[in-house]
Every structure is written in structure tokens, then in C-alpha cells.
């Protein structure tokens, strides 16, 4: 972006040719338009940030302040809101649940997605296209249609011999596996495109040197695909952390709820409990990991989220 703007080859074409002539678009009128532009941009910036800032401020108020003076600044920092949200409103438990599920689902999504995409991208075999397009089709299916049967499939996996005790409803493993399954279409789609761009010669050299297909994948191709994998891991982290509808169906037991879902329930009950500031504190707790990931990796997050549409 900066590179194209400060292109040394043709820095100021128009100016260099006719330095004395007035630049089209630079003048009093253009300046006014420029100010107007800036005004619009700033306005949307405020529309975006103010509700969020307000939510954060509200999490530090007392309930009295929240009701009588919603717009004002908090008189002090009411840390007790966070304590109430964390323990009384169970947000702490939900947070831990989310961490458990996401720490299983994101690595598994990346691993399985990469395995599938790698084979689909780089090996000729009958049925390759069929499997690829089957994955791709999943991108446009509305999740709601799957909810009902998925509920029963997950419930029935609980009756399986041996593994059944880890699966079924209200199981972290079940929810993680469902996340993995629903992330496959996009992950495979994205990574197939990525693996196709990696040079063939390296892979062949590996095989010639006596690498097995397995070690070629784990020791050569995966490290090479690292940038793509990072984008996807971020994308899937955000998607899984924020997921609402799937856990709503699978995690029916209160102590197994994940953060977004628990927060939704808390919001529904807040009116009765008259504890708004604890709700906002819970909201800030839910928002923090996402905010940190976003600030640290904003370039990759933006690239990862938009790449799917552009490709």
C-alpha cells in the first residue's frame, strides 16, 4: 500500500510536467470536500466506537449510576461488578468452558483441514473433485436446517460403546468436534488454494530424499504453509469463540455453557435480577480475549476474514 504510493519511478507525474498549472481537484472547493470526507469518516468512527466505549464504561459503574445517569462517567471503578459477573453470574465457569472447547477445536480444525486440503490440492486420485465440491457446498448451507438432526446425532453418539462417555450432549469434545465439522468447508477451501501455490519441486525433492508422504507433510509442507495456517487459526478462533447457535443446541446444561451462550442467558435474566453492571462486566470479560487477539494480529485477521470472499 505504502509502496505503491511512494513509487520512486513516477513520483509526481502531473506536477512534474506542468508545475505551474493548477492541479485539478486541488483548491478551495476540493478542500471543503476533503473536510466533508473527513467528517463522514470521523462520524462513522464514532458510531462504531461509542457503543463499545459506553459498554466498557458501564461495566465500571454502580447499578444506581447506570440507571440514573447512563451517559455519565463512572464515579469510581466498581471492580465488584467483575467479581459478581465472574462468580455469581457464572461467567468464570463459562469462560473456562469456552477456553477448553476452543483449545481443542481450533488446533483440530487446522490439523484436519490442512490434512484434507493438502491431499485435495496435491494428489490426483479418483473422487478428488467430488470431495472438494462436497466441502465447498457446505459454505452456502444455512446452519439452521441442520440444528434438529444434529441435536439427535450428538445425543446418540453418547450411547456409543467406549467413546460414548466422552461424547453426547453437554460434552466439550462433542461441541469441539461439531465446530471442527462446521469449519471444514471454509478451512479446506482456503487451504486447498494455499497448498496449490506451494512449489512442487520441494515436495519432490523430499520424496526423492526418502521422506515418506507423512513426514513430507508434517516436516516440509506444514511449516511452509505457516502464514496461511496462522490466518486460518485466527479466523477459526474468532468464529469458535463467538459461536452462539451451535452451543445453544448442544450445551443444554447450565454449567457446560460457553461464554457467548452464557452471556446471552445472563442478558435475558438481567431485567429480573436488576444487575445491569454485572452483565456489562461479563460482556467486557467476553470481549477482552477477542480485543487482544485483534490488536495483536489485526492485519492477519483482516486478511483472513476477507480472503475467503475475495478468492
Amino acid at each position, binding site marked *: 500500500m505504502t509502496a505503491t504510493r511512494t513509487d520512486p519511478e513516477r513520483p509526481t507525474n502531473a506536477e512534474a510536467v506542468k508545475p505551474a498549472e493548477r492541479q485539478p481537484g486541488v483548491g478551495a472547493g476540493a478542500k471543503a470536500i476533503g473536510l466533508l470526507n473527513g467528517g463522514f469518516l470521523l462520524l462513522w468512527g464514532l458510531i462504531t466506537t461509542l457503543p463499545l466505549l459506553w459498554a466498557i464504561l458501564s461495566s465500571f459503574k454502580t447499578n444506581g449510576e447506570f440507571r440514573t445517569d447512563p451517559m455519565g462517567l463512572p464515579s469510581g471503578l466498581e471492580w465488584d461488578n467483575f467479581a459478581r459477573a465472574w462468580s455469581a453470574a457464572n461467567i468464570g465457569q463459562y469462560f473456562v468452558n469456552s477456553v477448553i472447547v476452543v483449545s481443542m477445536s481450533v488446533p483440530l480444525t487446522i490439523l484436519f483441514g490442512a490434512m484434507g486440503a493438502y491431499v485435495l490440492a496435491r494428489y490426483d486420485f479418483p473422487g478428488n473433485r467430488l470431495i472438494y465440491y462436497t466441502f465447498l457446498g457446505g459454505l452456502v448451507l444455512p446452519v439452521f436446517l441442520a440444528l434438529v438432526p444434529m441435536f439427535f446425532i450428538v445425543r446418540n453418539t453418547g450411547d456409543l460403546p467406549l467413546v460414548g462417555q466422552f461424547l453426547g450432549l453437554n460434552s466439550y469434545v462433542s461441541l469441539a468436534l461439531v465446530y471442527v*465439522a462446521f469449519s471444514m468447508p471454509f478451512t479446506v477451501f482456503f487451504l486447498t488454494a494455499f497448498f496449490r501455490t506451494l*512449489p512442487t519441486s520441494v*515436495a519432490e525433492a523430499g520424496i526423492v530424499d526418502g521422506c515418506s*508422504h507423512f513426514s513430507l507433510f508434517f516436516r516440509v509442507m506444514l*511449516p511452509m504453509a505457516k502464514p496461511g495456517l496462522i490466518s486460518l487459526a485466527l479466523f477459526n478462533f474468532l468464529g469458535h469463540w463467538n459461536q452462539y447457535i451451535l452451543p445453544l443446541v448442544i450445551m443444554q446444561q447450565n454449567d457446560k455453557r460457553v461464554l457467548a451462550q452464557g*452471556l*446471552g442467558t445472563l442478558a435475558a435474566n438481567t431485567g429480573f435480577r436488576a444487575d445491569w453492571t454485572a452483565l456489562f462486566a461479563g460482556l467486557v470479560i467476553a470481549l477482552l480475549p477477542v480485543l487482544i487477539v485483534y490488536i495483536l494480529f489485526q492485519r492477519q485477521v483482516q486478511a483472513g476474514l476477507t480472503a475467503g470472499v475475495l478468492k
Partner: protein
Amino acid sequence: MTQTGLAGAAQSKDVRRPRPKRARAGSPMGRGKYPFILAFLLPPVGLYLLYMLSPYVQAIQISFTDWSGLTSSYNFIGFDNYVRMWNDDQIWTAVRNNLILLLVVPVLTLFLGLFFASMLNVGGRSKGAAVTGVRGSSIYKVVYFFPMVLSVVVVGIIFKYVFAPETAGGILNSTLSTIGLGGLTQLWLGEPRFLIWIVVVVMTWGFVGFYVVLFSAAMQSIPKDIYEAALLDGANRMTTFRKITLPLVWDTVQVGWVYMAIQAMDGFAVVHIMLGINGGVDGAGDVLGVAIYRAAFASSRFGYAAAIGVLMLILTMTIAILFMRGLRREKVELA
């Protein structure tokens, strides 16, 4: 590091061996490949089939039954669920609302996205350079994009309180009163005719930043000399936008449109959080996703829920195909 080392090795080997072109049996890449392919495809395909694809297939079957979900037995009742859906006013409200979301949210979002993206990328016109971004454009992009990474639940909760009455946090009403527009204050979430439009606003708020970033990427790839030429020919901002920027990012707009339309079909989390499981006052803010969830998990009518799901699938598919066709235009090749 591994990369360069191995690449070097590959080159030295190439001198002696003819290089095999693709992974086929007989070539070095083909040795023992089928067990490997099978082992690698099994976990992703297996999970995908079990948890995602098979539910879709079963759903269509369930939609022809009277299954309550509570018993193990059910009867096939043909198209009864679909007939019932046809006569269910609440479903029609939901369909109408989904269509509003489908038409209004993409138009608003893409319009604002294009507007802000073009300001950020070609809005600045300092002396010398033909087109530049405005100052701080990367900061704007970071800020605008942020709602996209938030959980819809968080967004829903915040806006539930933004639109609440003044005594329960409602900052919209407080803001209106403060700036002297107190006459416009409303019980926003208590008025049936506003409900779906509030959902429109919230969804638009969440998605605009995504499109600003998406369109910015597309605009960055437009060669600068095209703008310079246009400027020398005396084109003004509007003409430049209409004749250069828009045609050159049109492909991205088109893809973004389809994507947004599919997203807008959802609306579940926003409605469920802001308006509740019944779709707000008189069910006026209902959408199909909420109707499915309600029929299945609140009224134990799984057969009926599946039928609504099939309706939603048909709508989504139709819209995807229509939009793709309707928006197709000649591709503009970049120089």
C-alpha cells in the same frame, strides 16, 4: 530455511533426473500414496459427513414427519408440515422480515462500505500524487473492522441497551434528548413496526467495516496511472468514482453482495438476544432462524422445525443463484 535448503537439493538432483510433473503412481510422489490419501482424508471427511452433511440430509426427511423429538416413533405425514407453514401467519412475518434483511442490509452495507472505502483510498488529493488515501486511513480501517470480530451476542446485548428506555440505560434516547431532539425519543423495542428495522441497523453496523476493508483491498489494486490520466483529462471526483473505481471493483462488490445476502438470511443471534425467542412484541421482529429454534426446542415440533429449515434452504439457494445471475457483468480487465 528448510525451504531454501530443500530447494537447493532439488536443483542439484534435477541435473541428473528428469523431474516428475505430478503425483502419479510410478513417479516418486506416487509411491504408497493411497494409504496416505485415505488416512489423511478420513478425519476431515468423516467429521464433516457425520456432524454437518448428514444432518442436512436427515432434516429433509424429518420435515415430512410429525416427530416431536421426545418419542422415538413418528409418522410420515407427507406435506402436512408445509401446508401448515403456508397457513401460519407467524412464518409469513418471518419470511417478510428475512426478505427485508436480505434486500436492505446488503444494499446499505455495500453502499456505506463503498462510500467509506473510496474516501479512505482515493479520497485524499494532496498536491502531486493523483490519488492518495486520507490521513490515518489504516487507523480507520482497524476501528471500522472491529465489530466484525465481536460476538453477535455482545453486539446484540449492547444494542439492546442502546435502544432501551432511558431508565434502563437507553443511550439513544438520552442522546436524542441531549441534542434537543427529545421529540424523537421512542420506546424503540416496544413498537412492533420498528423491530425489524432496528435489526437492520444493528446488522449494518456490524458489517460495514468488513466491506470497507474488503473494498479497500480491491481499490488498492487499481493502477494509479489510471487515476492520473483521468485527472489530467479533468475528471472530477464523482466521474472518477463512477467511471473508474466502481467498474474496477465491481467483481468484488458482486461477490460481497452474495456473501452479505447469505449472512443477512441469518439474523438469528441479533433477534434472539435483542427481541427474545418470540421475536419481540407481537412477534413482529421474528426471522426464520428464530422460528426454527422455537419450533424445535421450545414447542418440541421437530418435524415442523425441519420444514421451516427446508424453506430457508430453498430461499437461500434461490437468492444465491438470482444474485449471481442478476449481477453478472462483463469483467473489466486491468491493464
